[in-house]
Structures are given as C-alpha cells and as structure tokens.
C-alpha cells in the first residue's frame, strides 16, 4: 500500500511538473546538432539526459546544454524548470538524471533521500535588491535597513532616504529558493511582513512586471534576470551594505547575497550525465558562458 501510494505520488508530481513546465514555457528540449564540432575539452557521450528544477539556474544549464549537444551529435539534453523542490524530489525518485537546486538537498529532502544524492556545485549565483523607478535617491540598503524594510518595521521610503512613498514588498513564494536564501543571508531569519503592503509573485518575470506596475515596489531577483537588457532599464538595482551587486564582488565574497548553484545526481553519475557535468565544470562553461550570463564561476 505504501509502495503504491508513493508511486502514485510520483506520477502526480510528474504530471504537475509537466503542466507547470508547459504553462511557463519552461521546457526546452535541445535536439542533437547535426554537425559534430571538435571543441576542446568536450568529452562526447551519446545518450539522453533530463535535468529539471531551479528556475534561477535554468538559463545557465539550458545554455550549456545547447552548446554541449551542438558539439556532440547523438546526445540529447532536456532542461526543465519546475522549481528546486521539484528537481530534488524527481532526481531522488530517479525520474530524471539531474536535479537543479538553489538550496542543499538536506534542507528539503528526508535524510535517507538526501544521502542518496551526490552534489555537484557548478556556479555561484547572486541576487540583487531592485526597486520601482519612482523610488529615487535610494542606491544602497544596509543589512539592517533591509531587515527594517522587509519585516515591515519601516513602511515608507522616506525612512531610508527615499521619496515619501509607501513601500510595497514583492515576495517570491515562501517555498522558493530565492526567498529562503535572501531570508537566511540578509534578514538573518527574521520573519517577513505580511498583509496589505505585500504581494507574492511566482517567477522572476512576474516579479519584474509587478515592480514596474507598482509605485514604491521592492523585490529580489537573480543577476541573470536583472542584467537582461529588456529588464535593466525598468528597475533600480541597489547596493547591499555599500557593495555593488556584481559578479566580481560575488567571486571575491564581498557581496553576501549569493549562493552555490547545485546539480544533484542519484549516486555517482555515469555516461552522458557524467560527461555533461564535467562540461559544466570545464573551461567552456566556467570561463566563457558563466560570466556572459552573470553567474560567478566556482572557486578553484
């Protein structure tokens, strides 16, 4: 009975995943390229691999997968979103080969499930506090100011050197990796405000839309989304404790709102999975792709 329920659960999650992926256009199957290119440092293995999970890490994994299959014909790598929780539970169940996550497996899964997974840290990812364009004169928030703003102790931009404008907090859902990372690293675990001046939006895209439409709005988004030319002109990016939100400052650890991007496998990887993870850690991705997408390379 327990076994049966579990399997049903897996099916249901897979179905939900599929629906979520379709609705947010998160599925991006990458077909094998026709012309094999002998790129340097690429170990080609044929086969088919599916990765899913974190939407913060998705742009990077997706771009790397496209490059890999272009270099290696006969391999197919599909990269889905779905959220860190989905990535972790699906890789633990064995329904996908790689689970992408912003947070560690131990923080989400039960201990036996978490212990069955092997962690591959592939990048550093940074987040930036952004505001609506009408919030003029605020270019920096200290950690303490962020705590005051996000817990609702301060409700007007006037109090932190801005215009006389109510603060509207735009959260990601409390289950999201972005939100829990921000809460841990900046708010020190303090409980966020709730109520009429708070909104919750599902994705980086929805957050960006809500900020542009709401006077006095503030939120937190990934570097990759902030540096997208389509978004950058619509938002004010803030310093944190006087430190610029740049990849360089993430790499030298002076900017603290950053975390590892994890790719989990069930047990040690083999075949195409191992080759692709090796490619993620190789010079092509770490040296070229990662900086171009505003991620930080992993520490050597």
């Amino acid at each position, binding site marked *: 009975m327990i076994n049966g329920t579990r399997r049903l659960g897996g099916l249901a999650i897979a179905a939900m995943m599929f629906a979520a992926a379709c609705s947010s256009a998160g599925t991006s199957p990458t077909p094998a390229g026709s012309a094999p290119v002998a790129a340097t440092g690429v170990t080609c293995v044929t086969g088919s691999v599916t990765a899913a999970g974190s939407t913060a890490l998705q742009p990077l994994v997706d771009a790397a997968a496209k490059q890999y299959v272009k270099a290696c014909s006969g391999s197919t790598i599909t990269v889905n979103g779905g959220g860190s929780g989905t990535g972790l539970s699906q890789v633990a169940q064995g329904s996908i080969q790689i689970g992408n996550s912003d947070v560690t497996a131990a923080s989400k899964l039960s201990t036996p499930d978490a212990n069955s997974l092997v962690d591959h840290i592939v990048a550093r990812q940074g987040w930036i506090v952004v505001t609506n364009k009408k919030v003029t004169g605020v270019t920096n928030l200290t950690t303490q100011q962020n705590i005051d703003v996000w817990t609702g102790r301060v409700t007007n931009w006037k109090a932190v050197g801005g215009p006389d404008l109510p603060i509207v907090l735009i959260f990601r859902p409390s*289950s999201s990796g972005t939100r829990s990372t921000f809460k841990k690293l900046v708010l020190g675990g303090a409980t966020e405000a709730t109520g009429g001046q708070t909104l*919750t939006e599902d994705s980086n895209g929805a957050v960006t839309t809500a900020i542009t439409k709401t006077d006095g709005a503030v939120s937190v988004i990934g570097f990759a989304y902030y540096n997208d030319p389509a978004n950058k002109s619509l938002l004010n990016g803030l310093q944190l404790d006087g430190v610029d939100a740049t990849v360089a400052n993430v790499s030298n650890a002076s900017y603290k709102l950053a975390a590892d991007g994890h790719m989990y496998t069930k047990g040690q990887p083999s075949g195409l999975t191992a080759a692709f993870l090796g490619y993620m850690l190789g010079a092509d991705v770490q040296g070229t792709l990662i900086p171009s997408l505003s991620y930080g390379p992993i520490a050597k």
Partner: protein
Amino acid sequence: MAQVTTANRIGSLRAAPGLLERIDLPRRVVFLAATSMIGIVALLLTFITWQGLQLFLKDGVSIGQVLSPTWQPDSTSGTPNFGVLPFIAGTVFVTGVALLISTPLSVGLALFLSEVAPAWARAIVQPALEIFVGIPSVVWGWLGLTILVPFLSDTFHQKIAISLPFVGEVFSMPGFLTGFSWLAGSLVLSVMILPTITSVSYDAFRAVPQELRTGSLALGTTRWQTIRHILLPAAMSGVLTAVVLGMTRAAGEALAVQMVIGNSPTLPAAITQPVTTLTSQITLDMGNTVFGEPWQDALWTMSLVLLIISVTSVMLVRLINKRRMGS
C-alpha cells in the same frame, strides 16, 4: 441472459455465430468506456482524499490549526503553522464578489436574448458569447494585469470615503496601494463566468413553455410583469444551476486570478487589498516543495478543500434539478 439465448437460437437457425458475434464487441467497448470513466473518477477521489488527509494522519496537524488564519509553513522561522483559512476565505471572497457582479448582468443578458432581442440582435450576441467562452483564462489575466491593475492603483490611490452633509463620514476604506487586489480578481472572474451563467440561464428561459407567456400576456400583463412574475419563478431552478456552475468555474480558476490578486497570504481588511486563493497558493508552492513533506501535504489538503467545493456544487445542482422535476 434471455437475450443471449434468443440470439443463439436465431444464430443456430441461420449458421453458427461468428467470433465477433459471440464476444459482442460493441457492447464490451461501450461497457469498458463507462467503467474506466467511473474507475478514473474513483481513483482521483481516493487519491486526493488520501493525500489531503496526510496532513492530519501523518503530520499530526490538528483541524483547529488548519482552520487558523496563520500560514507559516516554513520551519526556518520557528514552529510551522498550516493555517489555510486565508486561502479558503480568499476563494470565497473573490468568487462571491465575482458572482455579485456577474449574476445580474448575465441573467439580464439571458432575459434580453430570450425575451426581448429581435432575431438579428440574437444572431450577433450569441456568437459573441461563444467567442467569449473560447478566450483562454491567461488572456483575461494578462488583460487584467496590463489594464485593470494600473487603472485601479492610479485612479483609486487615495482613501475611498463617502461623506454625507451633517452626518460626516459614513464609509471609508483604504485606497489601492497597488492595483493587485481582491476587487481586481473579482472583476476578472466576473467577466470570465459571464458567458457560463448567461448561456445556462438562457436555456432555462427558453425551456419555459410558450403557453405560460401567451397565457400571461392574454391576461393583460406587460412584458416586464410576465418576466418578473411568470418567467423568473418558472426558470428559477435553471438560473440557480447557472449561478452554481459559474461559482464552480470561478472557484477553480487559478492562472488569471493569480496574475491580479497579489497573492498575499493573509485575511484581507478591504476589497482594495491583496488576497490569495486556494488555487493560486497551490500553484505558487507546488514546484518548490517535495512530495511527502508536511508543506506539500498542506497543499494536498487545500486540493481536498477544492474537491469538496466542487462535489458540493455538483450535489447542489442535482438537488436543484430534482426539486424542479418534483414540483
């Protein structure tokens, strides 16, 4: 059994029955279709009920806690508390106001189509309604997000108050700090359920026998008196069915609502404030939680609540129709 025997006898008079006749394929196919449909519904009900009860059975959360107003599922900020009342209330509030807006409009439109409109007007309005039904919910949500949300926050940003001379302020509520609000959700939903309520009520009015209309008019009543005293009472059960169907559609809508309500997991103080609904919260959290953890169990409990709403609605519609048959 008797039929089989008869069939066999007739068959034996002509020739031995063929294989296809003996297994009676069409009957089996139809039977299979019916049983598999029942089976799927039964499995679905069982699965959602079982998953929805895990929060109580496995995680030991009390019903009192689930009905409390505090949604704090995150164990990193202290003891989790799975109060889903804000979501149930949000669904009820947003759906309720949508029905208040949409029902008079839809029933009025149905009456116009069935009793007042000349043929050429009906020929325009009916296809227009069908197009309405076909517009995907994401488009309604997007329109709401692009037009309605900025409109509300720009136009009604200040406190909304009604003052009477001598008496002073009789009513006041905070303005739209942001346009993302309970009212925005209700307005989007009211447009979405308008064609559902209209078309089902229209059918109910058309089903009223013509003799009742002519009889009433022969007594010298005006058209309005006929509508009010004859048609509306006669079609009441059909109109109620239409409203319940509209309610089910509104309560189950996730995407369009999520885009405009702001998804703030607290009980709203006013119609100008952000709210959240059961469907919206499930979609927000399902990708980021893992199967079997209490947080996701709470989402399944919310699914169970939605299922109960939907089953109750179906029962209600059946009850209404039964009473109509009876009377």
